[in-house]
Each structure stands twice: as C-alpha cells, then as structure tokens.
C-alpha cells in the first residue's frame, strides 16, 4: 500500500546548516518524494548595492556573502578588477593572498566538520572545531584586524603587510591543528556511526556530476579530479605542490574523505607559502579611490573554495562604479537543483546531513 504523502517544512531557521533557508519536503512515511528549495531569508541585494557604490566601496561588502569563508569573495572581486584593468599584483601580495585563502579554507573545514557531525547528532565535534577554528581567527585578527570579515584583499594586493613574527605563529597554529587531526579521526572519521550514516547516502551519479554543475569536494567525491587551483591556477598556485585528493563512492562518506585529506593539503600549502614568500611590496596602489574608474570590459574569475568553484562575473562600463557584479557560489547549484534531485528517495533524518555534505550555503543562492 502506498503511504499517504504529507508536506514537511525544514527550516527556515538554520535547518542544520549555516544560514537560513527552507526545504519544502513531500514525504511518504519518512522517505522524501519531492524536495523544493526555498530561499529569500537572507537576500541583502549585495549585487544591487554594489552598482551604487564605487569600486573601492565594494570591497567591504563582498565578504558578507559568506561567513564561513569570506576571503574567496574578496579575492575574486580583486582579481576580476585586476583582470579588466590589467593591474599587476606584487608577488608578495599573491603569496599573502594564498595564505589567507588557505587559512580561510582551514577555518571553513573546521566549521564543516562541526556541521557535518552536528547534523548527525555528534555534538562534541562542533565544540572542538569551533574552538580550534578560533586559533585561526586569532591569526586573521592579527593580520587583517578582523576575525570573521577580513576586508583585507583588495585590488592591487593586500591592505597590510604581515606583522612581525606572524609566520612563526601561523606555523604554531598549523602544528596544533595537525596534532588535532588524530583526535578528529577518532571521534568523527573513524566513527562507525558516521560511516554508517554517510556511506551510500546522498549519492550524486558520477556520470551526471559535471553536467549537473557539481564542483569542489562533491565532484572529487565522485572520483573526478578537478580543482580550480590546478585547472586554472590563480595567484601562485602554479608554484606550489599539492595533491588533489579524490575518492570513489559518490556519497557523503567519499566527500568527507576528500575533505579530510584536503585539510592536510591546505596545511602543506600554507607551509610552502611561508617558505617561499618573497620580500617586497604587498600593494600596487590604485589611483585616488574617489575617482577610480575601470576601463569597460568584463571578466569571470573563480577560486576553489571549500565548497567548490566560486566565481565572480564583473562587468565595467568604464565608470567609477561596477555595471554588474554577479556572484556564483557553489551552493547556487548544489543547494537548489542538485539538492532537490538527490533528496528524492532520501530519509528525512538525512536531509541536513546531505545539505552539509554539499556545502549548502543559502547566502550564496540569494546574496
């Protein structure tokens, strides 16, 4: 006998993920028949706001699009402007940028581990990871003056040079985080419960992954080796050595395995950056910010965020304000069409779990 269908509303207040959104679920028993993403709780019209602001004024805005990992936004906007304008960035600034991006990835992995475990009821993990993330935020505070919103990367380079002794403190934090990995492994990655919940759940069919627009660790969790840092190296990624981990399985488990290995890669990348970072200028000054105009043109640039390919499409009409800044976060695809597809047939209790594994971040969907 077919079970009677009923409608469930998951969210909109933090439905097991960072950010507010709602998933409207048609369920039969506890199996999902149909899922629909509803957003609109976090729309702040950043893109419209930027059209009324000068290029320099856009920089403090974009970081707000993503709390866990704001820096790809800043870096993307800066690089898009630099590409349209043809502005050179000093080598040292590029290294500093990569350091910031990778530190942001580490911080974001911490939040993901907390979120992924939290959404299956393993609440010790978020306690740990949020605490450990604070050590990274301390570094950000020292480098950029802000803990969450750094407003640090801007067109032409970065705003301030490294403070004295920061390198040593970064290395200490890396060492600490590295030593914590076995603890995380024991509690989360080797946990039989986690494995049982994660394996075979949230399957993205491998042959559909690229066509569906899946990017980042979900794509690599399908055994497909693509990473913007390798495919189209930006800043100084082409001068650094790192692995792009992949895992076969297409499920939450394989995504988790990929991310777990990526943490080690990020730590290694930051160490290389600190080692290779040259002395010199960190900022190629823009003209007077009150008059600064960018030649007409457009550019689409992207970075590899923890959640995957993060892109900015920026159009200039030659004036002092952008004609269009259009943000493409991975969640725009992961959190709507992909999520709706793979929730079909899933269990209600797995919805937040799956959303976390995809890196669903509603502010990227509605901005």
């Amino acid at each position: 006998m077919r079970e009677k269908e009923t409608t469930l509303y998951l969210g909109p207040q933090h439905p097991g993920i960072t950010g507010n959104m709602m998933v409207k679920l048609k369920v039969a028993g506890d199996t999902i028949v149909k899922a629909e993403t509803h957003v609109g709780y976090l729309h702040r019209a950043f893109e419209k706001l930027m059209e009324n602001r000068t290029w320099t004024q856009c920089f403090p805005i974009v970081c707000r699009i993503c709390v866990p990992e704001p820096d790809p936004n800043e870096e993307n906007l800066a690089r898009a402007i630099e590409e349209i304008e043809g502005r050179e960035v000093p080598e040292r600034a590029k290294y500093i940028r990569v350091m910031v991006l990778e530190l942001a990835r580490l911080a974001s992995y911490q939040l993901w581990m907390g979120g992924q475990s939290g959404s299956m009821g393993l609440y010790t993990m978020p306690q740990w990871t949020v605490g450990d993330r604070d050590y990274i935020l301390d570094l950000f505070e020292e480098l950029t003056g802000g803990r969450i919103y750094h407003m640090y990367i801007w067109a032409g380079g970065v705003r301030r040079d490294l403070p004295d002794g920061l390198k040593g403190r970064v290395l200490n934090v890396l060492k600490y985080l590295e030593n914590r990995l076995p603890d995380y492994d024991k509690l989360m990655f080797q946990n039989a419960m986690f494995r049982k919940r994660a394996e075979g759940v949230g399957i993205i069919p491998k042959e559909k992954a690229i066509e569906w627009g899946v990017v980042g660790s979900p794509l690599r969790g399908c055994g497909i080796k693509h990473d913007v840092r390798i495919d189209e190296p930006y800043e100084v990624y082409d001068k650094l050595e790192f692995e792009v981990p992949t895992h076969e399985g297409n499920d939450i488990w394989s995504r988790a395995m990929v991310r777990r290995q990526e943490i080690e890669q990020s730590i290694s990348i930051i160490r290389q950056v600190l080692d290779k970072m040259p002395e010199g200028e960190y900022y190629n000054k823009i003209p007077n910010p009150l008059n600064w105009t960018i030649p007409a043109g457009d550019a689409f640039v992207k970075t590899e965020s923890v959640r995957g390919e993060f892109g900015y499409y920026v159009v200039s009409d030659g004036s002092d304000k952008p004609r269009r800044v259009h943000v493409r976060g991975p969640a725009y695809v992961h959190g709507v069409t992909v999520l709706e597809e793979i929730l079909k047939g899933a269990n209600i209790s797995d919805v937040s779990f799956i959303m976390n594994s995809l890196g669903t971040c509603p502010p990227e969907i509605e901005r």
Partner: protein
Amino acid sequence: MLDKDCNENKCAEQIKKTFQTAEVEVKREKRVTVQLRSDLIPPFLSFAKEFMEFKHLSHMSCVDWVEDNELELVFILWNYEQQVQIIAKTRIERVNAQFVSVKKFWNQAETYEREFHEMYGVNFVGNDRLGEFILEDWEGVPPMLRDFDSIKYSKETFYQRPGREDAQNVRATIAKHSGEEVPGFAKDYTIRNIED
C-alpha cells in the same frame, strides 16, 4: 602571445566555422568571448556542450544595458579537458524581455532563469518554475533593472531613524563661509554633492 594551434584558437576557429555570424575573440590564455545573435544561443550551447566538450556551465548572468534598451544574457562555459572558458553573450530586447529556456541542456540553468525572471523580468519560455523565488510579494519593477532606484525605495519603505538631520556638506559649508558661488555648470564636476 598564444600559440597558433593552442586550444583557445582551435575553439575560436571551430565556433567561427559553425556560426558564421558569431564575433569570436580570444581575449587571453584560456579565455574566448563569443557574441551571438539571440536565436543562435540554443544551437550554440548545444554545439559547445555536445561537440566541443564544454560540459560545465560555470555561470549564467544578465546585465542591464538600459541606455541601449537591451539586456545582455551571458553564458559562461568551461571545458575541463582543454581548460578553456567561453563567455557567450547575446543581447535581447529589454521591454517584455523573452528568451528560450536552456534548462534542457543544463538543469541548473533553471535556477538562473528563475532569478533573471524575478530580478530582470525576463520570461524564459519552457521554464515552468518561473515565479516567486528570492523575493516575497514583490510587485514593483524587477529590482535588478537599472531604473529601479534602490535608495529611493529604501527611503520610502523603511523608517529613517531621526537624529542625523544636522549633517552638513563639507563643500557647501566652506562655500557658504567664503561666499563662493559655484555656478551650475561647474557643479557637474563636484564629486561630492554640494546641495545635499
């Protein structure tokens, strides 16, 4: 300088051969820009996806060129094998903007189309999910159009907390103090608003 036989140039050649009216430009390494007539976009996307291995729809965008009375639709494709990005653009009429849905090529295009329908007023024929997406009970001009004045809207819609009326304009304060009379034609060059 790019090699003559590089992937970018090969892509450009292939597009030119198939779509003779297309304006193709290799902007730099890994970057190809294509301008197309709007009715050629669907065949182009299909061609790029199926025959040129541009399997990944990186992004879709919409830009309002209000002075030309046109909207520009932008499709950004990525070829994972050759590592080339195509930015394909087309212009459509701004009033009663209409375009054919491309969700048959990439399902995720549906989300972009829902957004452009709501924010720019473009009707995508073949997309059955157009309607309320991000906004709620919105009745005015689609808000991402350039003629929607967000500052005016904000002033009319939200309560302006009193207490800031004593703000002064620096340029005007100095002009008043010195007795300078700035003529109207010069005010076009006052970076900071002199009256307000």
